[in-house]
Structure formats: C-alpha cells, structure tokens
C-alpha cells in the first residue's frame, strides 16, 4: 500500500508548529481516517474533534491544503498525495491545541438572536396547517450542520476580527431560517442592522463556496436579509407610507 505524508499543526500557543507523519493510505480513505490512523500509530495525544464521520454533525472542520473542509468528507483520492497533505485548525477562532479551536463564540452569538416565536395555532385541532412549499422554502437553511466553515472563511471574522459586532454567515443562515419560517412572527431587522453587523458583509460569497451542505448562503439568506433591513430602514417610500409594507402579524 502507498504511504501518505501528512503535515499537521501540533501544539498550543507560541510553541505550535507543523509536524510530519507518514501513514498508509488506501482507496476510499478520507482525511479524518488518516488522522485517526496517526493517532493510533504514532501520536496518541493528537487533538481533533469528530463525531459522526458521515458529514452530518459538522465537528471535524479543519483546513486541508488551505481550504476549509470537513475532514470526514475529504477523500484522499481527490488530493495530490505526491505532496504533503497540510492539515491546520480553523483560523477564525482562538487556537487551543493541535486541530482544536475554541468555537464557543458561535454558541454565544446564537443566543443573542431572538428565538422562534410562532403565531397562535389556528387549525381546529389546536395546531397549524402549513403548505409543503412553505416548508421547502426554508429547508435549505435548516440543513446547516453548524460546522462553522463559513465563519472560518469569512474575512470579516478571519481578517478583521469583528466578532463582537458581526453574526457571521452561519448566523445569517440561522436568522433567515427563522425569518422565513412559515409560523414565525418575530422581527429581527433592527438586530441584524445594529448588533448583527450585516452591513459588513460585502458579498464575496466565500462562505457559499465552502459550505459542505451546499447552502447558497449569500444569495439566498444574506442578500434577502440585507434587503429586509434596507426596506425597513432605508426605503424612503416605506418611511412615508408604512401602509405599503405592513409588519408581520404579531404573536398573541
């Protein structure tokens, strides 16, 4: 069997650096398999998050040859194994050790977004009737596995470190899923403008490119949210005649 060379970011703080590991590779293997093999053979303390190994939980996010990827869905067959495979942790979050970063900011940020607030049940049985096409409209956003690769690649976070005033693509997708939920009644436009920093996004679409769930993050969630904010706060016509754009019905 062939050998592969893996150059992995090891250690923590100032002492961290790349280390090389060799391990056998076989057909169909993914990067995460190689990392596991290296753990079992030569680096039992190599830190890395993973869970489902099927692209469903979004735990094993890392940068493989410079691209934000899920390690479990990156096949070695698709990489040039004549070169070392370079595996690094995500760059937008504080580094902890080896391939693990502190992603807790994402969980804190989500809490700031107003939760789902359904309208009063209006079907005779005390629930709701919903059309399938209304379910389908938001499916794309609800596929998100919270791998945070979009947050990793977003320059507003990665290069400009606007973590305190910017939600990041993941949380725009989350907000869009709530806003377009057929039962939701909450208005999040002011928050998006004031706390979510949606104005910082200049639509470079890097987030869309790296999404392993192929969510069209920029076009389908960020741009409609930007439009919503613009309509609500910057459209002179609606300012004059709010009657043309009534708010969503209020929850009772």
């Amino acid at each position, binding site marked *: 069997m062939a050998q592969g060379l893996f150059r992995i970011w090891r250690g*923590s703080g100032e002492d961290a650096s790349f280390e090389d590991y060799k391990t056998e590779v*076989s*057909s*169909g*293997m*993914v990067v995460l*398999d190689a990392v596991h093999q290296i*753990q*079992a053979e030569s680096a*039992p*303390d*190599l*830190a*890395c*998050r*993973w*869970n*489902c*190994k*099927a*692209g*469903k*939980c*979004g*735990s094993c996010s890392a940068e493989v040859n410079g691209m934000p990827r899920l390690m479990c*869905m990156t*096949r070695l067959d698709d990489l040039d194994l004549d070169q070392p495979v370079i595996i690094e942790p995500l760059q937008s979050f504080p580094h*902890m*050790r*080896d391939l*693990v970063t*502190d992603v*807790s900011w994402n*969980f804190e940020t*989500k*809490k700031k977004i107003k*939760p*789902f607030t*359904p309208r009063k*049940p209006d*079907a005779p049985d005390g*629930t*709701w*009737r*919903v*059309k*399938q096409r209304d*379910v389908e409209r*938001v*499916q794309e956003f*609800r*596929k998100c*596995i*919270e791998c945070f690769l979009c947050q990793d690649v977003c320059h507003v976070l990665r290069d400009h470190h606007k973590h305190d005033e910017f939600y990041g693509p993941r949380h725009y997708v*989350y907000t869009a899923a*709530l806003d377009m*939920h*057929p*039962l*939701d009644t909450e208005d999040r436009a002011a928050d998006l403008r004031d706390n979510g920093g949606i104005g910082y996004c200049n639509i470079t679409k890097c987030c869309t490119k790296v999404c392993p769930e192929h969510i069209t993050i920029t076009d389908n969630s960020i741009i409609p949210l930007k439009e919503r904010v613009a309509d609500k706060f910057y459209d002179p016509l609606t300012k004059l005649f709010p009657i043309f754009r009534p708010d969503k019905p209020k929850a009772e």
Partner: protein
Amino acid sequence: MTTGEQFTSHEHDVIVIGAGGAGLRAAIEASANGARVALICKSLLGKAHTVMAEGGMAAAMANVDERDSWRVHFADTMRGGQYLNNWRKAEHHAKEAPDRVRELEAWGALFDRTKDGKILQRNFGGHRYPRLAHVGDRTGLEMIRTLQDYGIHQGIDVFMEYTVVELLKDGERVCGVVGYDRERGRFHVWTAGAVVLATGGIGRAFKITSNSWEYTGDGHSLAYNAGAELVDMEFVQFHPTGMVWPPSVKGILVTEGVRGEGGVLRNSEGRRFMFDDIPDLYKNQTAQDEEEGWRYVTGDKNASRPPELLTRDHVARCIVREIREGRGSPHGGVFLDIAWIKQKIKKSEEHIKKKLPSMYHQFKELAGVDITKEPMEVGPTTHYVMGGVRVDGDSQMSRVPGLFAAGEVAAGLHGANRLGGNSLSDLLVFGKRAGEHAAEFAKENTRAKPSQEQIASAIAHVLEPFDRSSGENPYDIQHELQDMMQEKVGIVRTESHMAEAVDGIGALRSRAANVIVHGHREYNPGWHTSIDLANLLIVSEAVARCALDRKESRGAHFREDYPSKEESHAGHNTVVSKGADGEMHLERRPITPMPQELGDIIEEMK
C-alpha cells in the same frame, strides 16, 4: 496514586448527562419544572448522535391513515419487541408520542406536510400504518437543532466537552457526579438532588457500527457501577443497511427510508431475496408480490408492505445469509436499489434527490455512487442497543434513588427489538418524563452530600494511566475488543464463541488496568480512550453474558445453536448487576403480567 488534585465545584438540582434528543428534552423539562439544571455533554452542543437519525419519529397521529391510533402503535411496538418490552413504557410511548411531536413543532421544527397541510407520516418497518413524522431524511438534525435552539433560552447551564467518570452517592442515593473538561483536563464536581443519564448506546463495542465515538456505554457503566441494574443487554440491533465500501466508511447508516420510498434488496443474481423468507408472525401483513409492495410504498391503503420493510433483525439475517451463501455484491454486501423506480415514475431522479437528499449526498461524496442511477451496496451494521438501565415505567428512575435514565441508555420500551422510528419518539417521551420526575425528586428530597474520599479516589483512578512508567496502548486493546465482539457476539451467535468472548473480555480487562497514556491532559484522545475502554468492557461483558444465557433466538438475538423461539425464555428479561464481590451477576427476572386491557389490545391486533 495522584492525590490532592484540585477540582471546581458546581451546585444544581438536576444533572443531565448527555445532550442528544433525550438529554436536551430532559433538561428542558427539568428546567420548566423549576430545577436548576446542568447539562453535561462530551461533544459540542448539537453534535450528538441524534443528528444521524434519518427516517423519522413514530407517533400515531393518524394524519395519513385515519385507522391509526395509540392502540395500534402499542401493539406494533410490543410485537416488534417480541413481548419482552416493559408494557407500561410501550403504553406511555404510544399515547404520548403525538403530543411530543406537536410540541416540537411549536418549538420550531418543520416537518414535511400532507396535501391538507398536516404533518406528513411515512411508512417504516414493523409499523402497520404510515406513522413517521419526518423531514426528508434528516429528521434527527431537525429534532436536535430544534431542542438546542429552544433549550439555549431556558436557563440551562451547558457544559460542553466534559466527560463524567463517576456517579457520587450518599448512602443509597445519587448526589452528584465527577468529571473533567476534555479541553483542559481539569476536574469538576457537580452536586445535585437527581441525575438523569441520557448517554445513548454502546455501538463502539463493535467493529462495524453506525455509531459515533461517543457511543461507548458511559451511562450504562456509570449506572452499573453505582448499583443500578442493566436489562435486555443481549438485544443489540444490527441495522440491515450500512455502507460496505469504501472500507473507511464501512458501517455508516443507509436509512430505512430508502426502502420506505420503494428501494428493494437484490442479490448478485438480481433476485429480490426478501420474498423468500417471510416469518409467520408477519405473513398476513406482507405483500404477496412485487406489484403489491410498490402499491404499498406509494400509499395504497389496501396493499401490504413489501418484505424489505420487515423488522430489522430479520432483514439483517437474510442479508447475512445471501452473503454467506455466495450471492453477495462485490464488496461483501447486497444491492439496495432505489434507481429502479424510474420504471414507475417520471422524474425519478428529482424525486429521489428530494426524498433522500442526505443519502444521495453521502453516496455521491463518499463512494462515488449516484443512487438515482445505480444500486448501492449495503450490509448490516451495529446500530442500537435495546438493553440498558432498568427503570420504572412511569418515572424512569432506576433502582438507585435519584438516578434516572432516558433514551437509548434506558431499557424497556423496545424489548427484544426496536422498530425504526420508535427511537426518536422514545427520546422525547421519556426525556420529558425523566426530566419531570428528576426535578420532582430533587425538590422532595433534601440535598445529600458526596464524600471527599469518593471524589479523590474517582479522580485518582482516571489519572492512573499517566502515572505508569510502562503499559499498553489503550487503542490496541479497544481494537481487539471490537474485533472480538464483532466476530463472537455479533449478528449470528453460538455458545462456544460467546463463552470465548466472556473469557476474552476478562483477559482484556486485566490488560486495560495497565494501559499507559503519554503527554498532556488537554484534549488527549489517548487518555479519553483509556476511560472509554473501561466502559466498553463492562457493556461488552453484559452483552456476552446475557446472550449466552438466552438459549433461544428472539428479536435481534439470533443463535445458530438455538434457532427458534423457546417458550421457556418467553417470560423473563435478563438482568445483570454488580455484586458485592465486584463481579457481574446475572438473573432471569419474570415479566410482570400486563393489565387485561393491554393484553386485549394485543390479541385484537394479532
């Protein structure tokens, strides 16, 4: 022995261990009942194994077929479990599941809809009527995300990436837990009036499994070590359809939804072999021919289900038979074909992608197979353990006062075999019950206090592998255990193999007591493996011992040397507990007779 290790103390009313569907639901309920709740989980929030659930959540809402009711669901569940179920749990489950689904919707979950806008329900193995509320094939993700996004606003203290290593007791009662944070390796002690285990299953005891790394039987072992009983551990469900190629993804689940949407199993000769062996218990409810099977999956209420949708144990064994007898696929599985429906419906490719998006994605990316055009190769994979902590059917409390369990770690609902779709509803129904009763227990009982000695000894024990100057690599022992369980206590079992396994586990236990861990405590997977290993050994021993004692084939437990059901084993559950001598003790526990009205339902639905 390392002594004087510092730890951080926390005080709560209820501690929930595990943040999958059951843990989140329990935490939400305990919090709603006024308890201060700590939710402790090994992974990040929202990553638990529940995300992997695909098919749906069984609940007799009768949205698609008005003939459905809790009584039919109850009878289906009991039949699937071969009547070893805790009938009280099966009753609660069937009655309460619809409310739990509706509640999830009120918290933001979006399910696929019927034409008149109700929650759509799909067919699944062993369920008489279309019963599974679902959204495409990612229902588990919808469920965990809904609970997570609702739960983070309920004032629950979440401890992400922490491992619990021991339950603390004051006399008989549970009064707290010891654990450490995986990121830094620092110790923590939580005290509380009640503890809810929601740690999931034991799949990692086997080599080929659909389960994630977290499934190492932690809750089973914590409960066992604290004096609780484990029951039905011989019943491990092997899901008939896991991926078989490429090798690195072997075991990853292929949802039963593929068969629910019309997917068929064929051997290398192209034969639909599931028609060749239909058990008597299901003869009346199975399609006579391929045409009737197709009519069933497309919603004809007068048709019976195709044999691909028989119970999982049966389908898994038929697949093993085809492979063993040389009619398997090139990589040692059989063929699962959904692409064939192009003969029946227009735009079948779009239809498949819409109904089974994750499956399409999974095969395309991991195996390079387009399931809309070609068949998949599939084979059985370790999926679920029916056995677990023995709990009261109403409160979910174990025999240890203050210790509750819910979800896969708790036993009873599924008996000898679980029906697909009954797991997600199990999580919600009994997560809620456990949370409610744990909060009540914590309220009614004065706070107990853990002993400093127990805390110190628990901490010292888990640090031992660092102190040794020589010893084995924990990974090696874990791999040996997984190979042994797969081979000797797997889908098809015999006396001699299982006896070897029991001895083998004993030998591995001695070796595991001397593993060595190198390096630091920060996120050190070698150290984590040394802790998991102790748990895996306990659950493996329980599985092997219970399987050895049940000299018959029933549900998921199949013995080559006793291939039929035996009346002599029909009336008891197998219970193991830790004896005063520290050894595992086994007991056959007679099943309490069920009340007349429940018995009548079963008779009526036969």
